[in-house]
């Protein structure tokens, strides 16, 4: 008789396999979290009707050409080709609302013809002209531009750094679950409702991954159903029954079987939810309620075809009237679908990503690849504000613009000095765009710009002095951190989504370490950099 020869490899099992016994241990450790959540009187996480939409800007956005430190003489000096010029007719040291010179009064003019920095009115910073559609959101007080965002011991690897942003755990490569996954686990809803965290892109991002509950990714919701052999109503039913039956089969443990099991259950439990929503292109009829650029007719909110792209169709198919590049229709299809999910289902967090920010060469100054990406950011935020602010939009209208925060993330900023290819390389601090009806932007505080002024708590130091000037403050070459990205996300997760401080310390473990100074700021115990703590954005 043959017998098994199974080695006892405790550490193998611990790291690699979930035996029945270990699975039980794992779930036990999670129970207290849920219980603590229930006991936390100050937590409304998942129950306060507030939601989050994230957009990850993959490849590292060149933040110095997004929110431009235009009054820093070191900026133009460092970027002979790439610097955004000042408008000679404007005084950028003046205060006030965001300048609207980038908008046309004559609707026949090209959408993007302004070639100067858009004065933000904080006396120091300007927006890249490709971001002009942020101006109305800014002036409504619904936009916070948070500059100099990074984390201690910044990694300049795309993949490390994206992981750190998505796990909320910088410099910890063993952290395998995502910041938004943990947020949803803390809400206690992960096991009680089918849909909690959703991404609409090619695959589930790390920010929504975790081992104990399945978040949902859809690449194309219009294809989200199954077939049968034969592909008839009866045949499909027979196949679905077989699949549901097999999903319940017990199995010997293997490394990825829990993952497969969770996601199969997620698939079968969400098919019906998504089948009830109209994700079709024909259903994409959402339009703005306000007009821009002197137009008399509002634009479509989600440009998914030329005809729905700005004033193209209104002006005899004029490509100069596009609001976004034609290559961005896939992104806006995803964005629209993410908005539909948040507006029509119980999902709390949804998001997508925008690729292509790794602009090592020929990134473009006023026009080009980087400006083309920025047009998408600005229009996306403008469109989401218009969509969620419209009380007569189609659908269940589960939330309003006041209930939503839109946040962008990007792994790092890019080099202050441009390279020989008229591009920029990997660097340190970047910028976050935070928008929503509840955001405390322009008019609700000193300004809607955070972290890009010599008047900041940690001042922006102009110039090109290595090690001293802000743009040369990290490694004598890169924009130095003024905010920790965790302080921005943490403030949103607590003040907006309703997490208690205790929950937040579990979602973002750095909050539990006083030396990290994430809440109130101070000198980081990790690398000695003085940071400003949470920005007062919400």
């Amino acid at each position: 008789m043959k017998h098994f020869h199974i080695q006892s490899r405790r550490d193998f099992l611990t790291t690699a396999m979930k035996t029945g016994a270990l699975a039980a241990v794992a779930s036990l450790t999670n129970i207290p979290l849920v219980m603590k959540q229930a006991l936390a009187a100050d937590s409304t996480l998942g129950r306060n009707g507030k939601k989050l939409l994230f957009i990850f800007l993959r490849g590292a956005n060149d933040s110095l050409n997004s929110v431009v430190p235009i009054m820093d003489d070191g900026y133009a000096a460092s970027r002979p080709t790439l610097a955004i010029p000042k408008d000679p007719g404007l005084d950028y040291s003046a205060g006030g609302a965001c300048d609207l010179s980038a908008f046309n009064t004559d609707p026949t003019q090209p959408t993007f013809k302004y070639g100067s920095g858009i004065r933000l009115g904080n006396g120091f910073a300007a927006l890249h002209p490709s971001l002009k559609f942020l101006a109305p959101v800014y002036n409504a007080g619904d936009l916070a531009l948070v500059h100099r965002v990074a984390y201690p011991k910044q990694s300049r690897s795309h993949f490390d750094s994206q992981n750190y942003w998505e796990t909320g755990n910088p410099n910890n490569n063993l952290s395998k679950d995502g910041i938004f996954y943990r947020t949803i686990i803390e809400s206690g809803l992960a096991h009680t409702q089918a849909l909690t965290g959703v991404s609409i892109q090619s695959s589930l991002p790390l920010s929504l991954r975790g081992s104990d509950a399945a978040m949902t990714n859809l690449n194309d919701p219009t294809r989200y159903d199954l077939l049968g052999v034969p592909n008839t109503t009866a045949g499909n039913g027979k196949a679905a029954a077989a699949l549901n039956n097999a999903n319940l089969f017990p199995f010997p443990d293997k490394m990825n079987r829990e993952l497969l099991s969770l996601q199969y259950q997620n698939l079968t439990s969400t098919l019906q939810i998504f089948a009830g929503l109209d994700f079709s292109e024909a259903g994409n009829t959402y339009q703005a309620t306000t007009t821009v650029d002197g137009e008399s007719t509002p634009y479509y909110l989600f440009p998914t075809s030329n005809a729905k792209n700005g004033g193209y169709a209104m002006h005899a198919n004029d490509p100069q009237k596009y609001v976004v590049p034609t290559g961005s229709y896939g992104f806006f299809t995803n964005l629209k679908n993410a908005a539909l999910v948040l507006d029509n289902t119980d999902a709390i967090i949804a998001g997508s990503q925008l690729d292509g920010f790794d602009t090592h060469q020929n990134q473009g100054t006023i026009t080009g690849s980087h400006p083309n990406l920025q047009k998408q950011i600005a229009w996306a935020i403008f469109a989401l504000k218009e969509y969620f602010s419209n009380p007569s939009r189609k659908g269940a209208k589960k939330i309003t613009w006041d209930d939503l925060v839109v946040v962008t993330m990007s792994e790092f900023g890019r080099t202050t000095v441009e390279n020989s290819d008229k591009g920029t390389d990997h660097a340190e601090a970047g910028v976050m765009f935070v928008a929503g009806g509840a955001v405390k932007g322009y008019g609700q505080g000193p300004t809607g710009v955070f972290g890009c002024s010599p008047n900041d708590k940690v001042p922006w130091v102009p110039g090109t002095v290595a090690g001293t000037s802000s743009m040369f403050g990290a490694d004598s070459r890169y924009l130095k951190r003024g905010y920790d990205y965790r302080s921005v996300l943490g403030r949103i997760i607590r003040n907006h989504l309703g997490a208690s401080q205790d929950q937040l310390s579990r979602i973002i473990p750095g909050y539990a370490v006083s030396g990290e100074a994430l809440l109130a700021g101070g000198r980081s115990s990790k690398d000695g950099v003085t940071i400003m703590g949470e920005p007062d954005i919400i």
Partner: protein
Amino acid sequence: MYIAHHVGRFLALTAAICGSVFAQDTGVSLTITNGTAVIDLPKIPGTDQYKVLGTPDLSGGFNVLNSGAVSGFTWTNSVGGTQGFFRAMGIPMPTNDMLAGLVLNRLAYGPTPDELERVKAIGADAWIAEQLAPETISESLDIDIVNTNRNWQRVVTTGTATSKSLYVYLTVPGDAYLDDVKLVSGSNPDTGANLLANGDFETTLTPSWTVSTNLSDSTIVSDVVHGGAGALHIIASSAGSSQSSSIWQTAANVTVGQTYTLSYWWKPGTNIISNMTLRLSGSGIVSNPDTIATKLAGGSAIIDDMRAWHVLHAVRSKKQLQEVLLQFLENHFVTQVSKSQDYFSNIYNGEEAMVAASLEYREIQRWREALQSPTCTFEDLLKISAESPAMIIYLDTVNSRGNGSNIPNENYAREVMELFSMGVDNGYDQTDITLLSRVWTGWTLDIVDPGQELNPLALRSTTLRPGGTNVNNRENLQGTWAFNYKQSMHWDQGTTVLFPGKSVPPRFGPPYAGRDYTLGIDVDPNTSTNWQHVVATGTATSKTLYMYLSAPGDIYIDDVQIVAGDVPDVGANLVSNGGFESGLTGWTVSPNHANTVTITDGVHSGAQALHLIATEGGSSQGSSVYHTGLGLTTGQTYTLSFWWKPGDAVGSSVTLRLSGSGIVATAPPRTSGDGLAQGYKVIHHLANLPFTEEFISAKLCRLFVHDNFHHGVYDYTDPNLSPEGKLVKACIDAWENGTPKGQIRQVLQVIFNSDLFRSQNAVLHKVKTPLEFTVSAIRTLRSENSDGTATANTDGYSIKDPINRMGAMKLFDRAEPNGYPEDAAPWISAGTLAERLRWVQALLIAPGGSGHTDAGNSVSDPVALLKKKLPNTSWNDAGAVADYFLGIILPSEGKANLDIYRIAAINFLNTGDDGVTSSPFAALTNTTAAYDTRVRGMVAAIMTTQRFHEQ
């Protein structure tokens, strides 16, 4: 030792396996209801059979209980009320069978039914040995055969009409012959009226055909015909793609949406590749007579051809491990064809897609060739990647400059360490990146003559291609885009020292720890671009002077003098026209120096100097520029002198010597201090750093073993090092101890011999990527027939869209330089699973059936397979059919663990299409559509379970 707990009043139960230890972790439970005992059996991987043993008294031995029954993971038995002890036991599947499934899942793109039988027969180790030596596997796939047939050949294509208009065009300027073009209704090319007018070209081309301007040289010819008296000689002066660049006609009697068959005869023109396309507007029927291999070899394939070819190798090649490794290399040294295409769009108008695809083809062919060598090293593979034009474009070295005030682009410098060799956070820092970025400046591209693809110092091709008029326009040149080094773009501003003062950290242990891996890249002091003087005195051995470069390259020469005595340049110059004032008069130029010219700008003296250019190194009269009949007297003393300055290429030395070597003068080669030598030095250094050995070994372990291998964390000195860490260490040692270091096969052997890879517990930990999932699905059902057909097949092209939908896997076109993930989590989510399941269902739906569209030209015929493999007495035996397909689809699971699947499969076979009505499988006539549908549905049901994603 094994009494775990008491359950119930009368029975004490434990589950254990004789002599094994897993039972201590394995929860089992016993319930007794109405005198029936039910035991939930432990679920043990790879179990063929579960048994329950019992004893009434622990002092006695356990006996296998023959009463009771196992179904799935449950044992039931009636109990008599007496106390007893039980334990469960699993009989493992035969190791040989387990290993056969394992190696075909990991070292291949999944088992085929035939290969599974073969590996079980010869044993997994014999198969591994065979796969590790692909050069010993004889194979001649039709997809690799370049069509060199110059005769008339027939092509037939059936499809659905999308338009009434048929276009004929060439996608590249050139010519071909075409005759007897027929478009008929239905699927038979020989039945029905030809719906095209003058498809046999027996009358004048117009008015039946409309000829676009770029094809206006096309004529009806009578000397080269297939049938009748006329054929079309199609001649394109520029590339075609649509109606306005084609020869076309509208077939009035075609009905859109109906099936038609296009057939024609063609014959190559000047080149064996035709680049011809015949298609209906809307591409319902498309035909290109060139085979994939012909297109790839001819440089006119686009990336979809390359993808199809790659997929077809994965499906069909016997050299499966090689295919797995090639995909690994392609993905590890990732490049992006669309970025190459974008680069070439600045040079070409229409051909950029082909040029870009050709880079991917040449890259993978170089790796394929390298893997044929038993001693192939990682350095070989890294070098191929560094030299690949696709990489040079992808990570931006192509335009990176380090001269003057320019700051080099850091992209390749970072990723070559982070992603291609050492691994992130593993032995380098930003300073090293910045320093290394200087090294790669000058590593760029140019279009060079055939045969010069691997010579980075080759000069730009000066051969005009047909129709080309201007050698200054690269689009007009004939040649190959290749890695080319340009000194003028190189950072040349000082000594570079990489990894200054760094040493291997203690965690690596001996002999690695403490090694200083500083790499000094010396800058040759002789970096002057000025004219320099070389002098040599000696005894004349002949009257003939040779001048040659030792390697391909170029250099400037002026004022060659030979004077009597030992003082240079004093006395009469015995070399006539030594200053090249009369061009090359007096000098004879050998073929390898045929590009040599005289110049007038920047000369040393006078009006002209020589620009000595070599396409191959020289050594003697026949490979030099030489001067005979010098006025020398053999045996007397003379002094030779000349002036030289560096050309664009560096790295070769110029030699001027008398035949017989009585006097030899050499301008010293700039062997270092230039970016070419620096780059190769860096590659050599990076390739065998302990960090690289660790990172690549861990990555190979993730490919072949499971997802949880890491780099940068293991402490190899730790006595409690994990088995994963120990395996990585064993790989590092094998890498380090080889001569040469870093032999891929030696590292793989360590992995394949490891317990982590081979043990009963090691199977099925990995999840398939979309490519692995789709290819393995086809292979699972694919048995090749002697007539070339198979029970499952794909055209290769039909895989592109499905794997894109299963998580944006675009072969040869990954945007991010980290390549596609090897671990499971990024691939598995509800949306991507829906696409996987839909595709499997589409694959199993018969071609033409509703829902098959997603699978395109990927098809399966499971009934043909079962009738081939099972005796006809079993064709209607639901159990036998279920067993057969479970055995080939999930070969590593163990029969006992598949019992629940077997029950479900049999139930499926015995149920009507509505999923409710009983419809015994035994009663279906096995030649009917109902039988076919039933089997297809059952196979789809098995292949859409969670288990088929695993490997």
